[in-house]
């Protein structure tokens, strides 16, 4: 893509999320606040990495965008998908609309565990061909060529097309899943923990391949706890804690430059073995029993009485104590 085209693409918003919340109704009238008041925009050609500890609500957010939440979930806010047709609010759309026009066609999903995502009893070729027929209506006589072209887009070797999923290595299974996600030429790609369990070389390769799909003009939302993968390919980083985005920053300033500003985001980064290798003290709070104020305060060394009220999110960071407090 030329630079001019890239600039143009970057100006187009593909996904616009406003005040997205997800609650799960539990037995005994309890509620689990899995996602609370999340807002962000995602443009074509851009990669946003959503990072946080396990159980912070990242994957629930992905399920909400795909309309795949279980029956006891209640949502609020909006998530408007602009790319690939008329704007549609993913939270309000009915199942028929989502199934026939959104999933696969306007949002491609790169799954967490490709080996479990692929149909075990059919070859990669058969699965790609079926997806092509369903999503693009490719006529039978052109299917073979189109299948191979689809495989090549995700750098899946043609010699392995007639293999079954269990005959593929982790890396190749990942590419097969990516190829399937790219078939519908969706303007938005959603990658849910795409690198979990892969070794470092494969993480790098998978991440680079995802980056390439973004460079081709797609918007990429990567949900991950792998900060190294995020650093490698993300343009922006959203840090989630207890269901809320607590910091939204440019990747360059987050990983290098000025570094993260929220104490939790700092702690998460400092936990890396190439940095301080010290954990954030304590454990994430229960999403069914969140404090009224800042949810991070019980683990935060900067916490004061002020943290009993929730710090507002100003579009970049949500914290009362951005500067180190003068210790008395």
């Amino acid at each position, binding site marked *: 893509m030329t630079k001019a085209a890239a600039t143009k693409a970057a100006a187009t918003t593909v996904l616009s999320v406003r005040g997205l919340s997800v609650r799960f109704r539990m037995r005994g009238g309890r509620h689990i606040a899995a996602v609370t008041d999340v807002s962000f925009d995602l443009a074509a050609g851009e990669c946003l990495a959503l990072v946080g500890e*396990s159980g912070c609500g990242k994957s629930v957010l992905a399920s909400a965008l795909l309309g795949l939440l279980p029956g006891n979930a209640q949502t609020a806010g909006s998530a408007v998908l602009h790319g690939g047709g008329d704007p549609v609010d993913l939270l309000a759309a009915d199942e028929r609309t989502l199934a026939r026009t959104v999933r696969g066609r306007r949002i491609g999903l790169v799954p967490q565990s490709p080996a479990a995502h692929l149909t075990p009893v059919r070859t990669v070729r058969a699965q790609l061909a079926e997806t092509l027929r369903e999503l693009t209506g490719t006529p039978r006589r052109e299917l073979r060529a189109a299948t191979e072209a689809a495989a090549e887009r995700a750098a899946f070797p043609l010699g392995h097309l007639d293999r079954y999923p269990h005959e593929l290595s982790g890396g190749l299974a990942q590419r097969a899943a990516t190829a399937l996600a790219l078939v519908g030429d969706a303007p938005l790609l959603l990658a849910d923990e795409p690198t979990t369990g*892969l070794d470092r070389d*494969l993480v790098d390769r998978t991440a680079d391949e995802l980056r390439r799909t973004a460079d081709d003009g797609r918007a990429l939302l990567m949900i991950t*706890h792998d900060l190294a993968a995020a650093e490698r390919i993300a343009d922006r980083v959203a840090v989630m804690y207890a269901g809320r985005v607590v910091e939204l920053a440019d990747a360059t300033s987050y990983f290098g430059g000025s570094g993260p500003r929220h104490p939790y985001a700092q*702690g998460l980064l400092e*936990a890396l073995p190439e940095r301080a*290798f010290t*954990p954030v003290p304590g*454990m994430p709070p229960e999403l069914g029993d969140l404090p009224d104020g800042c949810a991070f305060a019980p683990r935060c060394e900067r916490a004061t009485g002020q943290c009993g009220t929730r710090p507002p999110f100003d579009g970049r960071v949500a914290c009362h104590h951005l500067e180190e407090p003068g210790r008395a």
Partner: protein
Amino acid sequence: MLDLKNITAGYERGRPVVREVSLAVAPGEAVGLLGPSGCGKSTLARVAALLHRPDNGTVTLDGALVTEWRHRAPRAQRTTVGVVFQSPRLAADPRLRLREIVAEPLRATGRQIEVRERVDELADLVGLGGDLLNRRPHEVSDGQLQRACLARALVLRPRLLVCDEMTAMLDASTTAALVAAVERYRRETTASLLAVGHDRTLLERWCDRAAEWTELSG
């Protein structure tokens, strides 16, 4: 502490996945074992943890030659080694509460009397606070369940801990917390460690030395 000599091991006759590999871990030493997925390093870890009988080669544990594996291994030898696997979901009985998961090795060796004290001690070490110990695996996160699996591996005070990709599925903060718990245990007991993984940065930071899989075959 542990001496693996010319180990050849596999799952099918004539198709070894580990060939002629040697590795030694000195008393109190922490050794990292680095290799890509599928190279056979987990199989070697299973041999070291007395969970898989090698086709060839010798295993010496604490000066004694290992002649039996799995349930046939003498109890004294079996309890010398603690092991933590990559996926806590596959390594924990879904019917048990975390407290029972951690206490299981004590029950299995007839040391029920120590359960209460020892489980509380370990819950503190691995950071399992609140009512987490009373929950079942489906009610906790991967990170919390892995903390319980680490506690279970330490409950009999092993002198060698084998960690097979213990943190591969976990986020940075949980990884650092689990490694810190292992190191605290090792400081208190001078136990040895064999940590298997593919993350060079992690193993070089964590261990006294990191051995490269390709350099072990001889």
